[in-house]
Each structure stands twice: as C-alpha cells, then as structure tokens.
C-alpha cells in the first residue's frame, strides 16, 4: 500500500506537473495558456512601481552636503560644488549663501543598488526610478552626470499614499 501511494504521489504526479505545464504553455494565449515569461526585446514587463532601477537627482534640492557620497559603500558618487551668493529672501536682508553643484556623478558600473544614498539624503534630492534599460557598450559610459541623472527624474513615479495611521512628517 505504501509503495503504491508513494508511486502515485511522487512519481506519477511529478510527470503530471511537467505535462500540465507543457500543455498550458503550448495552448494559445487567447485560451488562457502561454508561457510565464515574455520575449524581452519584443514585449516588456512593467517593473513594480518601487523597483530599484536607476537613481534620479533633483538638482535644486541638493545642497552638496556629501552625506550620500560618504555613506555610499562603493564610493561611486562624485560631488563637487562651490558656494554662491543669492539675493536675500527679504528686502534689506543680507545676501544668502547657497551651495551650487558643479558635478554630481554616479558610476553605475560600481553602484550596487543598495539605496543608502536615497535613504540618507535629508533634502529629498535623490529618488529611485524603475527604469532599467541603460546598458552601454563601453563601461565608462555608465558614469551618469548630473544632467543625465536629472533626466531620470521624469521617470520617477509619484510617491504612493501613506498607509492609514502612518506617522506624518512634521511640518514647520
């Protein structure tokens, strides 16, 4: 009895699983069949909204505080900046000092997509984008400068709604 049961549950059902998958894959898509995979260059799967594809930069928010560059485990963020005087906020006030970015590069040949830079940024200047198609024939071209990182901002999805009961960010 035991052997017969093992045979049915183990060996025969094993063959059944592969045969079922086989039949499902060869039945046309319209009839509910088809493969679980997609033929990549011809059709594309939409990545999840929070996928870690590429890091985008909102240049206006960046104060070149270097927190991201220092926390990067791979040291793949390069930042150079200088201080500039900006007109005062109120009439008669002293001119403000602002940090101006000269260079903000991320070397995607080194980046390991840990996202620590995005987490650590106190000024909301770095964002995850689900975009993933930016491979290059030359490895040096994977160094994205601040213009290119700024262009990725267009692909950043809207932040999802906070869950009910989540802690609200304290305003001023």
């Amino acid at each position, binding site marked *: 009895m035991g052997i017969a049961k093992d045979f049915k549950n183990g*060996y025969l059902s*094993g*063959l059944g*699983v*592969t*045969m079922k*998958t*086989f039949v*499902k*894959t*060869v039945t046309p898509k319209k009839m509910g069949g088809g*493969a*679980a*995979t997609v*033929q990549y260059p011809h059709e594309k799967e939409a990545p999840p909204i929070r996928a870690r594809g590429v890091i985008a930069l909102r240049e206006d928010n960046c104060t070149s505080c270097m927190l991201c560059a220092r926390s990067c485990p791979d040291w793949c963020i390069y930042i150079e900046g200088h201080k500039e005087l900006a007109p005062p906020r109120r009439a008669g006030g002293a001119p403000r000092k602002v940090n101006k970015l000269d260079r903000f590069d991320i070397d995607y040949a080194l980046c390991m997509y840990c996202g620590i830079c995005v987490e650590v940024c106190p000024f909301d200047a770095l964002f995850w984008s689900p975009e993933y198609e930016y491979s290059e024939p030359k490895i040096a071209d994977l160094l994205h400068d601040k213009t290119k990182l700024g262009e990725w901002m267009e692909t950043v999805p809207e932040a999802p709604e906070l869950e009910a009961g989540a802690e609200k960010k304290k305003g001023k």
Partner: protein
Amino acid sequence: MSMFAVDIPYWGQSLLRVLGGTVAVLLPAGTIVYLFLFKMMSFMQSRLGPMEAGPYGSMQLVAEVGKWLQKEDLQPLRADKRIFKIAPLIVLVSTFILVAVVPFGPDAYFTNFQAGIFYALAVSSVSVLGILIAGWSSANKYSLLGGLRAAGQLIAYELPMVLAVIGVVIQAGTLNLQQIVVAQNAGEMFGWNGLGNPYLLTQFVGFVVFMISVQAELTQTPFDMPIAESELVSGYMTEYSGFRFLIFFIAEFANVGVFSLIAAVLFLGGWGIPFSWFGWHSMGDVDNWMNIVGPLIMVTKMIVLSFVVMWVRFSYPRLREDQLQRFAWKVLIPVSLLNIMVTAVLKVIF
C-alpha cells in the same frame, strides 16, 4: 538494397550504407535536441525556449554548432593527450556501429546479423570505454570520479537491460532483429491477430525494465550521476571544450535516438504494421512500399520513445549514487530474472 531495382555495385552499396548510417544517427540527434531539449523542456518550464534563430528558433542548433566549432581546443597540461583526444570519438563511433543492425524496412537495413540483438548489446557497452578513458585522461579529480561513476552505473544497468531483452528473445525465438519484427507483426495474442503481437503488451515488464535501464545507460536524469553538473561539474566532460565537447553532446542525443530505435524494434513492432491488415503472413509477402513507409514508422516510434525518455529526464531529480546501485541490483535484476522465468514457462505451455 534491392528496392531500387537497379544493380548497385558493392562500393556503391557500401557508400549508401555509410550515408544512410550517418543520416540515421545525426537526424534523430538533431531532432531530439531541437524538439525535446530546446522546445519541450522549455515548455515544461513554462517558457518558450530559443525563438530568435530561424522560425521558432529552429536554426538554434546550427548557431550552437557554429559556436562550438569556433572555440579553442583546450587540453589540461597533465592530460594524456592522445587518449584525451580520441575518447569522444570512441563514444560517437559506438553509436554509429550500433545503428548498423537496426532494420528500417523489409529490405532497408544496413546489415542483417543473425545475432543482431546480441551484437547491439555488446557494442553499446563500448561507449563506457570512451567515457572511462575520457575521465581518466583528463587529469582532473572530478573527471575521474565522473568516469568511475559512469563505469559503475553502465555496468550495473547493462545487466537488467540484457535480461529484459532475453524475455523478448525467448518469445520471438530468434536473436535476429529483422525476425523479431516479423514475429511481432505476424504473431497473434491468444488467437487474435488484429494487432499482431507487439511485445509492449505481452512483455510489458520487460519493456519497463528495458526503458529504465536505457535511461540509466544514456546517463539521463534521474540517473545522471556521472555528469552531475552541480557536484562533479559535468564529470568526465569537465575538461572538454569546443568540437570535442560537441562530439560528446551529439553522441549523447544520438544514443537516445538509437536506443529508442532498438526499443521500438524490440517492443513496438519495429518498422512493421500488423501483417493481418494487408493479408500478409510472412516476410516474403510484405509489399515493396514498406521500404519507404517502414523508415517513417520507425522514426515516429523513435520520437515517441525518446519523448518518454526526455519527459522522465525533465521531471525527476537526480538519485543518489547508492540509491542508483541498490535500485539496479535489488529491484531491476530480480524483476527481470522473474520475467525471464515466467516467459520461459509460458512459452512452453502455449
């Protein structure tokens, strides 16, 4: 070769036989690789497999062969170079000399050995030598382990295979493959000759034991310990690259085809259709057109049987080495011995 109604000189016949043998080995190999290894395995894993090279990826094999031919012919420094080079050839040649006894029609055969199945079983073990010396000459411990595992496994499973065939031989009363085909198609089961007497039905135990042993002889999963890519990094094939690896690869799948052909001859009635359908009684009555239809029937049966081999291959995980040996010696061999005994008794009674 009388089917052409012209007298072909001996050298012409030999040339035709060599050509036919090459086709009979390489065509099944290519078909099995594309249909089963590329496509059926992908479908069973819910993916489409190669789709880019040619329509539905049908030219993928050409691309793969081109890739292998371009690769460097590497040899380990300490390898026994000459032996290392000829090992894959031995494995492939054993396939070619194996197909020589398979009949494809009443006159469409390469040779008509009286002891055909005896020859086939003897020759099929030549490939073990190729595998063993490939493992030995590679100067690599994984290759050596793979080679030794292959030797142990192939010897263990040759026995049940031979014993399963003996049942067929007792029932047919001949060792000649051509006559085994005739015995199945001209025979009758309990006085009814509508289906002939395919030994698949009357020798079912023998058929199951034979197919399991074939699975092990071909080192297909679940009996692929000699290759075992995850523990032995492909065993005896570890050090082979380029076209020498290609030869091993072709030999593996050509062997699937040739063993399926032999199993078709032994158990599925070979090239024949039940003789009673056309009012034939013996070999002499068979019409000439069977020389054309026969090979097609053989190819169909070969595809069905290799489908089963590959289906099992893609469904089951690998056995452990001791489980493998225990299964051969404690299950298959006693069962096939029992099968011989019962067959012999029934042969005397009926």
